[in-house]
């Protein structure tokens, strides 16, 4: 009985985290922007020829004309961000490995956007963002329209992770 209740709570939490209500799309900065922390969530905008990422009070700007390449990919990852990680860690205490059910429930497909640009000093930077599914292609199109370059056209999203 207790096990059933615990499992129901854990599954409910997982589903709730996976189905977040309508909010402006959150973009996760994986790595690459020196003024922004790794894995910081924020918003990515492209305006007046500038790609801008804002996370809380911090912001990073990259002129689209300095972008040399943009790559798009997808990945299957854990949903729910930090809260999801906490719930999943707590679920590991559940008996008979039942917490592993959350691993199956808390999956989400994300787009990965890799932006390669050259700084003012000539140094190459590679910035990686994790975006909600379907947003990377649109963002790439916007970047190209704003003046970003691409070395080779990518015809389709390549899904790799099972």
């Amino acid at each position: 009985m207790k096990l059933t209740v615990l499992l129901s709570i854990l599954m409910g939490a997982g589903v709730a985290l996976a189905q977040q209500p309508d909010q402006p799309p959150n973009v996760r900065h994986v790595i690459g922007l020196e003024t922004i922390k790794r894995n910081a969530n924020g918003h990515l905008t492209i305006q007046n020829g500038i790609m801008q990422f804002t996370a809380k009070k911090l912001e990073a700007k990259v002129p689209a004309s300095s972008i040399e390449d943009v790559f798009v990919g997808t990945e299957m990852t854990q949903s729910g961000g930090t809260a999801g990680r906490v719930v999943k860690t707590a679920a590991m205490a559940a008996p008979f490995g039942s917490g592993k059910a959350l691993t199956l429930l808390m999956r989400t497909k994300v787009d990965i956007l890799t932006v390669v640009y050259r700084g003012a000093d000539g140094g190459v930077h590679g910035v990686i963002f994790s975006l909600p599914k379907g947003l990377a292609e649109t963002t790439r199109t916007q970047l190209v329209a704003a003046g970003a370059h691409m070395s080779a056209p990518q015809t389709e999203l390549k899904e790799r992770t099972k």
Partner: protein
Amino acid sequence: MKIALGVTLMLAAAAAIPSQTPAPTPKLHASAIQIDLVEVGDVSIPAEFRYAIYERLIEQVRESRKFEKVFRSGDKAAKNVPDLVTLHTSVEAFTEGSQMKRELVPVAMGSTKVDVTTQVTDKDGKKLLDQKVAGKVRIFGENLGATNDLAKRITKLLVASF
């Protein structure tokens, strides 16, 4: 008598061996290092892994404080440093695993692994260091975690060599 002589000779030879062990390799010296972009050759590896390795290497080598300056690939200022060394990283093999499989069957399934060859050259192109290094993620975390593991191992190698 012959046996005693034989034993004596063998003991003498054994005693002589430790004194023949080569002296420890002298440490290399450089005030600055340039991190080159990761070469992938014919290996099929997603762009985000290539740039994540590059960015994490810059981050980790800077954090190690082993060099006064850490330059990105293409940085024009690097040319003016007389004792500059360059870190070259070439991907030899890549296996992309699955975070879900790793969490369901830890260690046995779903590991992500990147094998690279790391070389350090001086300004004249002379090879100062040449080693194979592997980065893995076997239990928790995203596939990109393998790039972090790899960067840590390469940095450790640099710290031990300089």
